[in-house]
């Protein structure tokens, strides 16, 4: 329901783990996530876009409240894309 979450380092860590687990993001690529730099590498932006497309969100390639909201929902532990 309506809230305006701020995107902090915790959110970035959650996003990193989520994309590793469900979208086959390689840990090497994910190191960029550990800084608060939002200019992610192309591969990370691709993964964010892939997830946004999968969930029918607006495809921006950026972490925003919509994608973080989806990441916070209970779900199945199987990946959404292939390894």
């Amino acid at each position: 329901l309506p809230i305006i979450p701020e995107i902090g380092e915790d959110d970035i860590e959650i996003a990193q783990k989520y994309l590793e687990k469900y979208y086959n993001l390689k840990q090497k690529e994910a190191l960029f996530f550990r800084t608060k730099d939002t200019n992610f590498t192309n591969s990370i932006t691709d993964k964010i876009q892939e997830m946004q497309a999968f969930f029918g969100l607006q495809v921006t390639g950026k972490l925003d409240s919509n994608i973080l909201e989806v990441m916070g929902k209970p779900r199945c532990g199987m990946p959404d894309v292939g390894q």
Partner: protein
Amino acid sequence: YIAFPWSSKWGKKVLTYRILNYTPDMDPDEVDRAIERALKVWSDVTPLTFIKVYGGDEADIKISFASGYHNDFYPFDGPHGILAHAYGPTDDPIGGDAHFDEDEYWTKDLKGINLFLVAAHEFGHSLGLNHSSVLGSLMHPVYTPTDRRKFKLHQDDIVRIQNLYGVCVSEKTTSTSLTQAPTSSTTTTCAHNLKFDAATTLRGEIFFFKDSYLWRKRFYTPGIDHLLITSFWPTLPSGLQAAYEVNEEDVMLLFKGNQYWAIRGYDVLPGFPKEIHTLGFPGSIKRIDAAVYNRDTRKTYFFSGPNYWSYDEVSKSMEKGYPKRIAINFPRVGRRVDAAFYYKGRFYFFRGSKQFEIDPKSKRVINVLKSNSWLDC
């Protein structure tokens, strides 16, 4: 084959399953029934048959409850987050197995995590399906609480499982009911003839209801969400007919038939649903078509058939002198209203595929728009 490169499908039509252990959250009988029903979801639309085995017998699908690390390199993560996982068909002993996170609170209803819904999803993996991006499908990865009695397998799931195993001989007789819900899809958002069941503001956003779904219009982020109503309020019925928000009380009222629910956030307030006659409607009124709260006057208009009533939200009583005719007091709107909301000093009434922007004081139509003008069409 994307999610399970090692698997495709079982090479047989009769599969065995075995429940290795039981969650303490539910009676064993309840677990048995939830598992049986979850497997039946798939056997109803395919030629597959599932047979339960006991004791030391090997089984194609082994079902277990476990916490944290549980010997498969994919540990669970405590309450919420990951609920369960399952392995696709393979000759490996783990193939087909379904593991459920014991740190969840498993229930037969929607008080906790509904075992039937999660098991039905996991058994889709056990049979070889990967995740679906189709909203409302069983194989969508996010848990969507749904009353089991209202559960119907989505057409997307049916098509995909039948691509693997074929059609059940008796499927023609069952598929009609199985494919009817959910009845709305994202493709209808910009349909020229889109009609809403109900509409309301909610905490600064606008919600439009139709069948099992709602559209959520936000203003601080772009895009429109299209969601199952049950993803927010699992116990509410589909086909809601009227809605409004009393901003000062942070309460949303939702109507269907002669009942209404008061909602705050995710919660249905205690004591609801109540009968609409407790609001002061005559016994002849069986449903409300639309409702709109004017926060400037603190009055709510209720529309039913060709008439409307005015309800004082301060005194919690129906005003005298009503009902009045919609067509007479709101010229150009017509003889009925399907949905309505109040936003920034204007009423927005919906009838069919039309939307009327109205000045609340003069009750005059200022603008006529398409019904879906709020949905980025």
